[in-house]
C-alpha cells in the first residue's frame, strides 16, 4: 500500500513538472532584461529551498535518533541528506549555466554561490563519514552528531558569506531585488515549481529509505549467515 502511494506521488510529481515546464517554456513572457534564459531560474531556486528543507529534516531526525536510538530516524537522515545533496548540486549547476549565459562566466565567488558550494561540501563530508564507519550503530551515532553540526555550520556559512561578499559586490545581481517587481505569473510559477520539487524530494526520500532498509536487511542476513557458518 505504501509503495502504491509512493508510485502515485511520483507520477503526480512527474506530471506536475510536465505541466510546469509547459507553462515555463510556452506561456510565460520573456523577462525584461534577461531574455529567455531566465527560465532556468525556476529550476535553480526551488531545488535550493527543497535542499535546505531536506537538510533541516535530516538534522532533526539526527537529533531524534540520538535521543531514541530508533533506526528509522537514521534511515531518514541519510536518505534526506542524499536527496538534499542531489538537489543542491542541481542548484549549483543551474546557477553556473545561468551565469555562463548571462554574464559569460562559469563561476563567481558571490555570497550565494560560495555558501552553496560550501554547504554541498559539508554534506558530502557527511556521506564520506558514513562510508568510512562500518559498524551500523557507530555510523548512525557519529553521523547524527555531524548532521547537527552541519546544519549550524550551514547557517553560519550563509550569514558570514553574505557579509563578506556584499562588501565586494560582484557581477551577479541579487535575486531579491528582482522579487518585488516580479511578474505575478512568474511568482506563481516559482511556487508551483517549488511544490513540484518538494513532492519530488518526498518521493525520492521515500524510495531511498526503502533502498536503505533493504540494504540493512541484506547486511543482517549476511551477518547471520557468517555467524551460523
Amino acid at each position, binding site marked *: 500500500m505504501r509503495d502504491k502511494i509512493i508510485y502515485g506521488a511520483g507520477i503526480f510529481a512527474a506530471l506536475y513538472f510536465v505541466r510546469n515546464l509547459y507553462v515555463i517554456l510556452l506561456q510565460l513572457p520573456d523577462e525584461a532584461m534577461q531574455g529567455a534564459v531566465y527560465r532556468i531560474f525556476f529550476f535553480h531556486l526551488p531545488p535550493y529551498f527543497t535542499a535546505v528543507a531536506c537538510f533541516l529534516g535530516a538534522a532533526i531526525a539526527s537529533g531524534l535518533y540520538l535521543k531514541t*536510538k530508533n533506526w528509522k530516524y537514521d534511515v531518514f537522515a541519510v536518505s534526506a541528506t542524499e536527496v538534499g545533496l542531489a538537489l543542491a548540486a542541481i542548484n549549483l549547476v543551474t546557477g553556473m549555466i545561468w551565469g555562463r549565459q548571462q554574464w559569460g562566466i562559469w563561476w563567481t565567488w558571490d555570497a550565494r554561490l560560495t555558501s552553496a558550494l560550501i554547504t554541498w561540501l559539508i554534506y558530502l563530508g557527511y556521506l564520506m563519514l558514513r562510508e568510512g564507519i562500518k*559498524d*551500523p*550503530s557507530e555510523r548512525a551515532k557519529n553521523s547524527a552528531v555531524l548532521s547537527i553540526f552541519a546544519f549550524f555550520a550551514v547557517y553560519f556559512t550563509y550569514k558570514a558569506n553574505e557579509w563578506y561578499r556584499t562588501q565586494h559586490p560582484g557581477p551577479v545581481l541579487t535575486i531579491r531585488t528582482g522579487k518585488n517587481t516580479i511578474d505575478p505569473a512568474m511568482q506563481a510559477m516559482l511556487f508551483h515549481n517549488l511544490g513540484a520539487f518538494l513532492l519530488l524530494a518526498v518521493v525520492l526520500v521515500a524510495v531511498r529509505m526503502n533502498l536503505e532498509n533493504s540494504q*540493512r536487511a541484506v*547486511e*543482517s542476513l549476511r*551477518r*547471520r549467515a557468517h*555467524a551460523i557458518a
Partner: protein
Amino acid sequence: MTALQAHDLWKYYGDFAALQKVGFEFAAGSCVALLGRNGAGKTTLLRILAGLSQASEGEVRILDGNPRQASVRSRIGIIGHGIGIYDDLSAEENLLTFARLYAVANPAKAVDHWLERTDLARVRRGKAREFSRGMRQRLAIARAFIHSPNFLILDEPFTSLDDRAIALLQGLLKDALHQGATVVLSTHQLKEALELASHVLLLNRGKLAFSGVRTAEMLANPGWVYQHYGEAA
C-alpha cells in the same frame, strides 16, 4: 548488598545479537569468572559493565548505580585487552594522570604506594615505552588499582602475564576480595581464575549457558563447565 545486577541484556551490532537476554545478580564480595569461547560475547558484556558501551536493551546496575554515572565509575577498576598506559609518559606520570582523573585524595602518596606495591619504584621515572613486557603489565595493574576500587572488571587479565605479574595480580585480587570488593573477570586461564572465583558464568554465542557457584569439582577439573554446558561441538 547486591553489587552487580544485569537484567535482560541485549546488545546488537546492526542486526547481529552479540548478547541475548543475559541476566544475573551477585552480592558484594563475589568473584565471578566469565567463561566462553572466543566470540561468545565476553568482551561485549564486560565493556557494557565497564560503561564503555551501552546495552541495546536491558539494564545493568553496578554498586546500585548506572555504570555511566561518574560516582560509580570512580569505584570501578578495569584492565581491558589493551593495557591502557601511555608509552611516552613515565610510570610516575602515567599513574599521576590517572590518579587525578579518578580524583584520588592524595595523588602523590597513592602513586608512591602503588609503585612500591608493583615493584616499579626503581623505574618510576622511566618511560613506559622502555619497559619490559612484565613491567608494563605491572604498571597497568597499578593503574587499575590506584584509586582503590571496590569493583574490578578484568578482560583476560592473566593472558600473557609473566609469573611475577600473575602472582602480584592474584595477591591484589585476594586482598581486594577480602575487603569486600567485587570482581568480574573473563578468562581462558581456567586454573588461575577458578582459584579465585566464587561464581562462574558461561556465555555461549551471546546466551547465558550457565550461572552458578564455583564448586570444588570445577576446581579439580577446570574444564567441567565447558564439558557440561558448553556447545555440543
